[in-house]
């Protein structure tokens, strides 16, 4: 772990639904520019955990600190202003706008122009928008209607949108879900490259162990709402508790783990 202050610190995060603990006492941190994976079997509480990090759902207990400031009860839009970009498991984009306009909306919001009623948006920060599109290799798509994009392109667009506020931290919930294997690798490599270039911390959840073990510098393992292991990919892979859980899930993981070990 690097010596600088962490971008994200989480302490004792807890959430329960109708008496069932979805997340229980989870604590961890993400350092600047660090790429961290949050893994766990289905229903382990990964998405709930994620949604608490950017304020989408309020935690029952615990604290979230971004760049040293407490954001526990802040709504997502405030968390975003503190420098957090977010992508969703199922992409959320503005389907009636062009690809460029999707970015422009985010740029305008970042520039606090949301309540400007007269400026022409199609001319707003075009160059910045196109630069961001270039960053995710979508320069040629700028004028395409967003509603026509293939799913993989939507994922990349979402990434570009999430980068519009020069974030210090990216929260990516299953960034490669629903994509073809080749695309997954390409997308995660892109994320890793951008994160390193811009010193952006990345926290992502993922099912695909190839992706996890190729890119994560650190892995957090969540099971039944609790953090059961944390460490480098190699150490986590060796952890007997982790192995037990994933064995319990069936043999599928064995294959995945095997492949991951090869990769």
């Amino acid at each position: 772990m690097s010596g600088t202050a962490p971008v994200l610190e989480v302490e004792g995060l807890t959430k329960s639904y109708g008496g069932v603990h979805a997340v229980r006492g989870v604590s961890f941190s993400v350092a600047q520019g660090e790429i961290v994976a949050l893994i766990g079997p289905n229903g382990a509480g990964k998405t709930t955990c994620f949604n608490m990090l950017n304020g989408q759902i309020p935690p029952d207990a615990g604290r979230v600190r971004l760049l040293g400031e407490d954001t526990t009860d802040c709504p997502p839009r405030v968390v975003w202003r503190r420098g957090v970009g977010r992508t969703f498991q199922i992409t959320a984009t503005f389907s009636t706008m062009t690809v460029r306009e999707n970015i422009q909306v985010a740029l305008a919001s970042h520039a606090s122009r949301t309540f400007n009623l007269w400026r022409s948006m199609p001319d707003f920060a075009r160059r910045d928008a196109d630069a961001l599109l270039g960053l995710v290799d979508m320069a040629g798509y700028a004028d395409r209607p967003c509603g026509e994009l293939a799913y993989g392109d939507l994922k990349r667009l979402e990434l570009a949108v999430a980068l519009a506020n020069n974030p210090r931290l990216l929260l990516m919930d299953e960034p490669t879900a629903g994509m073809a294997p080749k695309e997954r690798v390409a997308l995660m490599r892109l994320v890793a490259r951008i994160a390193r270039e811009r010193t952006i911390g990345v926290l992502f959840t993922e099912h695909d162990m190839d992706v996890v073990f190729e890119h994560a510098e650190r892995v957090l393992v969540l099971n039944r709402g609790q953090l059961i292991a944390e460490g480098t990919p190699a150490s986590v892979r060796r952890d007997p508790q982790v192995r037990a859980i994933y064995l319990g899930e069936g043999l599928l993981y064995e294959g995945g783990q095997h492949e991951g070990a090869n990769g």
Partner: protein
Amino acid sequence: MSFYVVQFLTGLASAASLFLVASGLSIIFGVTRIVNFAHGAFYMLGAYMAFTLTERLSGTVGFWGGIVLAALAVAAVGAAVEMILLRRIYKSPELFQLLATFGLTLMVEDLVVILWGPDDLLGRRAPGFRGAIDVFGQNLPSYDLFLIVIGPVVLGALWLLFHRTRWGVLVRAATQDRDMVAALGVNQKWLFTSVFAAGVFLAALGGALQIPRDAVNHTMDLRIIVDVFVVVVIGGLGSITGAFAAAVLVSELNAFGILVFPKISIILVFLVMAAVLIVRPWGLFGKAETAPRRTPGSAVRPWRPLTFAERVAVALVFAAAASLPLFGGNYAISVATEIVIFALFAASLHFLMSAGGLASFGHAAYFGLGSYGVALLAKLAGAPMLVCLLAGPLLGLAGAVVFGFFAVRLSGVYFAMLTLAFAQIAWSVAFQWVEVTGGDNGLLGIWPARLVATPARFYWLSLAISAALVVALRVMVFSPFGYALRATRDSALRGEAIGIDGKRVQWIAFVIAGTIAAVAGALFAYLKGSVFPDSLGISLSVDGLVMVLLGGVETVSGAIVGAIVYKALNIWLVSQTELSKLVLGGLIIVLVVAFPRGIVGMAELVVDRLRRRAQLSASPPSAALAQDIESAK
């Protein structure tokens, strides 16, 4: 004490028919997700049918048989309506369904007059339930007792039906998750048809059971439908228990409310509904909609600002419109003024609906508040026209600020219902507060200042104001605010995640739309010289919706064309035929089913296709075909 007991029982009797109709509406909504505005029309048809049958069939068996037969006959009509009309629009936005069923209601209103005549009809009393029984020294009609029993009996029967039969289990499953039932291999079409018929049966039965105590007439539908909406929304759409509880609540509030505030009953239920929606947005027993539904205004083809050539064309059109007084007569000018004003009204609603994705069913409230703002300033304060025109719309603005704050917390059909409730509250106040608003008699003598008193000058004034505000709306659509609004409509989740406060953006859009509607209302007051409560009424709100739909809800400024065509057609129709409701209702249905894109939307589509075809003329025809299929989706 005995008085209160009997008052309570009387309230329960009133609740019975409300419950029957409301439960039918709720069942239909639960499965088909259609808010059936025509439910009141089926209730009315049930009463008319029952009247005819009970007059023909004699004796006790004849009476009760007539009631049941009437309900069955209307249920068959309902099934036919479902198969012919509703099947085509299940996937449309809820606004389209509300409008289509509203169109149906309009048609039925004229049809019953044609079939049964315009007079009120007095149905037979129920055999065996003619008199009253003594309850603690008070007379309670025995028919009331019968109704008090029938409510829980129907509730119980529905429970058994839904829990003890395969059909019922399927209906419940479909209420929970429609796709799941499709996956089970059940013939979904027939399930929907049977559910719709069952819901209509309940409505018709509710109507048929009214004939011993009501007068069968052609305005029964609107009387009941608004109450039923209130009941269903309070109880929670899709919940039968909720419908029962809310029917009892509303009826008892009414029964006891009139003892304390005899004049408040018309507002009371709306106040309760607004309160419930604000505290529990999905009603007392309702559940949140799981997946948000497609809102109108989500065409794949993104909007773009006008090109230079198009701007020149618009300027020429404006010049042409401005030259109308040079060759048109006074009547033509005044009709054109009315059209211009309604174009502004429609444009404001269109802004809210297309860019905001918020289909308001009570937009007339702000139009009317603008009218009343002007009228009150002119009459009470004696303010000159300029002051009135500037300050009058502030009343609309204030209304939009208050109502909008609550309304934008909801979405979809709940938003529509809450805006409807607010508009009804505003209407009721104007209708009943005679001391200030003049009530039904309105406020008179609001004529334009001498400077703009001629029809031509007032037309120019209206045209200038309307054009300026329409341009302003267009600028807003393409401003960062307009994009933030569209962003919230497309994906509130994503909008929030990039720092957009969606509720606030929608609230401001609501206020903008309301204020511009109020300006239209202010001009309208000067055009007509008087202001009446119907400028806040449901029918004006629906007019606005039809104008937007006619123009094309997925366009940027289609409402203007919609307003021109609709208003011109309407003025012509009213002046030519007395069956304008039949024609108008039919027009709405055709529009929703066959031309959901509206006039401008269709035109854009055609232009788009031609353009693509021209582009693709070099490539093989199959590619062009594929493109067509793509764009037609």
